[in-house]
């Protein structure tokens, strides 16, 4: 009987020890309740801790930043564009006691956050134009030559608020509500924004027509430029050949003038002799074997034929 008793006593001691000690991890917050009533404060430093065995219960909560992924919501923006908005948030259990009392466990907390964050997201998105939700700043788009002047006018509109500010608005409003559930919210962000199906189709159509416009313009620009080059070609060709003609004529004219001066100077000494010589020359050049010559015996050549004597 004795060893059995000893064994039982040992087991009891072990149970007592196990029941009175508990460890707290780096990642945990612990709340101790006695018959369901919270005792002491929150245990938030990690390590080994002591409690009353059996009558005190340990409730563990995660101390870390926790994820919250909202469901995608279909929300109309202020300019009546229907979009899916998917948000995420970072939160933590800031007041375990209140959290424990208000929502019980993490799942309860998540569902409460669903209500709060989704509601605030809906409110915020619905009170801004789509462009405000999408863009963060007013930075000007870099535009390549092909794209100049193309694009929806609304997309070029100035942004007054912008995405980060809207996210901040949602966070601030939601973070005001969550403390009553012992929850601290640090960040709410848009994870995904997408057009709903029917709007998306319209957007695709617009994108297609935009691209067609760009393509058309590019083609006609090409043709225009080609015509311009062709015109330039004609201009240059005519310019070049006429300039060539001009200088050729100038050179020739100069030469003619010079030649004329030379002739005038030389022949001017005896114009009559020149005329005579030139006549002889021309006569030589202007006859061939088909030419008839009718000469009078009166002519200088045949004068002697008739009379047989010189004058």
């Amino acid at each position, binding site marked *: 009987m004795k060893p059995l008793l000893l064994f039982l006593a040992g087991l009891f001691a072990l149970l007592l020890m196990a029941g009175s000690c508990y460890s707290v991890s*780096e990642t945990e917050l612990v709340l101790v309740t006695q018959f369901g009533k919270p005792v002491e404060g929150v245990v938030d430093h990690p390590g080994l801790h002591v409690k009353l065995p059996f009558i005190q219960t340990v409730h563990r909560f995660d101390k870390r930043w926790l994820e919250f992924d909202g469901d995608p919501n279909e929300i109309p923006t202020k300019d009546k564009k229907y979009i899916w908005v998917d948000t995420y948030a970072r939160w933590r259990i800031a007041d375990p006691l209140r959290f424990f009392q208000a929502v019980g466990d993490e799942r309860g907390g998540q569902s409460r956050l669903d209500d709060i964050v989704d509601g605030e997201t809906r409110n915020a998105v619905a009170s801004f134009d789509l462009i405000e939700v*999408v863009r963060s700043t007013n930075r000007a*788009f870099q535009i390549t030559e092909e794209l100049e002047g193309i694009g929806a006018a609304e*997309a070029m509109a100035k942004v007054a608020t912008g995405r980060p500010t809207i996210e901040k608005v949602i966070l601030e409003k939601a973070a005001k509500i969550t403390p009553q559930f012992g929850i601290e919210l640090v960040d709410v962000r848009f994870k995904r924004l*997408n057009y709903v199906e029917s709007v998306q189709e319209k957007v695709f159509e617009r994108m297609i027509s935009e691209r067609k416009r760009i393509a058309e313009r*590019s083609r006609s620009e090409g043709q225009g430029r080609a015509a311009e080059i062709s015109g330039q070609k004609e201009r240059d060709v005519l310019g070049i050949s006429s300039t060539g003609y001009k200088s050729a004529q100038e050179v*020739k004219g100069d*030469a003619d003038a010079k030649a004329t001066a030379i002739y005038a100077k030389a022949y001017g000494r005896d114009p009559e002799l020149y005329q005579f010589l030139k006549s*002889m020359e021309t006569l030589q050049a202007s006859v061939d*074997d088909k030419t008839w010559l009718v000469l009078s015996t009166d002519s200088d050549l045949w004068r002697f034929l008739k009379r047989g004597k010189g004058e």
Partner: protein
Amino acid sequence: MSDHEHLEFRGKVIDLSPLSPDRARLIRLLGGAAIALFLFIFLATSVYQVEPDEVAVVQRFGAFDRTAEPGLHLRAPFGVETVTKVPVQRQLKMEFGFRTLSAGVQTSYAPASADTQAEALMLTGDLNVAVVEWIVQYRIKDPRAYLFHVRSVPDTLRDMSEAAMRGVVGDHSVDEVLTIGREAIASQAKDELQRLGDLYGVGIEIQQLVLQDVNPPDPVKPAFNEVNQAIQEKERAINEAWAEYNQVVPRAKGEAEQAVRAAEGYALERVNNAEGDAKRFDALYDEYKKAPEVTRKRIYLEAMAELMPKLGKKVIVDASAKGILSLLQLGGPEAAKGEKP
């Protein structure tokens, strides 16, 4: 009672020695096994190995105690100290918009699912839609923060990454996203992601964010291709026009040059001829001056002498004969030949 004892006593032989050799052996065996088990558990729960690319975080009763570098280490056994190994040296990768099935020479990708498509589809700053795929490479910089500060860091990183990328893409036009802005977008998204990571204290260092395939949505793709084609066509039209220009203009230049050179040749010839003629005339004139009448006659007669043999028909008419011209058949050389062969 005594009745029972008696019966038992009658029925059984009881060994009065404290333990039979059999039982003693069994107990020794059990004891040995228990000690072996104890030792085994002791060793199993106290010795641990840290791989070269890891760091071990040791917690004692849940509280952070120390970190351990690669090698063989001891810890307090039986769950007093727990060890979590964190691969701090390893470069980790996360894919968005696509999933690699098996990496290798021929990397294969998982077929696009609704999930990956939703990841990649995003609104651009000009309210168009683009499909953006990207990867994030990161390293665990602070194992304590990684383990203790944020729960499920990989999920958090996915959320952050999507939000950061969409934030940046939402501030760029679809054309920037598709072409000229890619690098800027990647680097901005990386900075934003690191900023968010530091804000949440996830203990991660973003090493790289690389844009992969970036496309217009499928229904719009043909229109985008058409633009590319049109740009090609434009280039081609311009190039062809320049080609023609280059074909014609240099030739025109050459021809103009040719005309000028020819004119220069003409000029040279003209002036030289003139000078030559002038010299000849001068020389002739000097001699002519000495005996004008004789020279003149001589020249005339010489010219005639030279001329005469070249002529076809010669008609010599007496100076007193009038009207003889009308008798001559002046129908032209041809007609004359026909009549008198």
